[in-house]
């Protein structure tokens, strides 16, 4: 009886693990770096979406909104490297093993994201063309970093 209960409990835990791995959702928790970086990246994605919609002409360009987009990306960049401590590899994380195996490269990519967003914030973005140039330079970091340091599932 005890054994079957233990097995059932183990099964439930495994099922919960699979469910977690499947929808990749964690409650934001200050003690859980995976939850923090996942939420930060989702915000980066949403901010990028606002910038892209302006670029595509789906919404009108507004320099203050453009600046808010770049500020969001810069703020996320500032804390990003620290959200990948040594003990934060997990089955439901999309972070590639290269984040830890190639620490220097990941550090460099994270530093570049900070530097590029900083440069963009110092540049004029009064027109959509000016914003577009900065937005493109900043968002090139998404692919160049994800190529090595993020896995798809």
């Amino acid at each position, binding site marked *: 009886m005890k054994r079957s209960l233990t097995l059932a409990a183990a099964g439930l835990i495994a099922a919960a693990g699979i469910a977690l791995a499947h929808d990749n959702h964690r409650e934001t928790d200050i003690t859980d770096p995976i939850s923090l970086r996942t939420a930060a*990246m989702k915000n980066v*994605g*949403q901010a*990028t*979406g606002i910038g*892209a919609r302006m670029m*595509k002409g789906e919404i009108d360009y507004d320099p203050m909104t453009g600046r808010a987009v770049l500020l969001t990306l810069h703020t996320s960049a500032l804390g990003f490297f620290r959200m990948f401590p040594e003990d934060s590899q997990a089955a439901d994380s*999309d972070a*590639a*093993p290269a984040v830890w195996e190639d620490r220097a490269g990941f550090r460099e990519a994270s530093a570049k994201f900070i530097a590029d967003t900083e440069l963009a914030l110092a540049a004029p973005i009064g027109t959509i063309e000016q914003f577009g140039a900065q937005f493109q330079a900043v*968002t090139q970091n*998404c*692919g*160049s970093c*994800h*190529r090595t340091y*993020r*896995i*798809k*599932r």
Partner: protein
Amino acid sequence: MLWRGLLALAVIAAGLGWYVTGAERVAEADVPAHTPDLENGALVFAIGGCASCHVAPGASDKTVLAGGLLIHSEFGTFAVPNISSDATHGIGAWSAADFLSAMKLGTAPDGRHYYPAFPFTAYARTRDGDLLDLFAYLKTLPADATPSAPHALGFPFSISRGIGLWKLLYATPDPVLPEDGLSEAALRGRYLVEGPGHCAECHTPRDALGGLDMARWMAGGPNPDGPGRIPNITPAKLTWSESDIAYYLESGFTPDFDSAGGSMVAVIENTAKLPPEDRAAIAAYLTALPPRE
């Protein structure tokens, strides 16, 4: 299971005889007369993803096709060869027939089989005109004298003649999706995706012998050369609109503005160079695929 399959393969190969495993070539006389269009050659180079494998890892100049990338697979490690215009170490001394033989039949100039890590099964669906434009374009790229490294494969994969049998089982230049009911755009997409784009090489799962599982065309599966999984891009799982797919192929951004990771980043660098109507054509084809779980 893999080993049992291989044993069966070895027995069948012996039974069918040596000649079956010989390599076919495109004859000089069968190379069509063609005036190369270098601009189109550059587009075929982009959709073909040649640079993604043939540029040396870490090299910043994406036109120097010196090779050297190692592809770690369950069959062993493939070393991507030099295909720069160097006459000794690259393809600078090749004839057009050599090039068509390689791209359409997976046969090297010395008559040996290429391993299907080089996606000749898909490139075989590319039109001769596009291939000859690509060949002319490749000859304009820089020469590099880095010798190609040998593959490091275990037995029996180290016997390249076995590929002759593999080709009988898996290689066909016929289109995969039937033409019926496909729009003009989807037909163009079929050409790009099934042919030069060789999307199925990753997006379709493989069987024990490394052939594509056609019943699960584009249904995704384990990543053949790294961690993670390759997503299912049939309408069973990929529910984006055609314009969402086209935008992804241009920008790398999903409808949620997540951005592509892993080897798809290099693919998007290539698809971003295509004319917009070709990205729309790929989207039209993908949304017309039969849903597969």
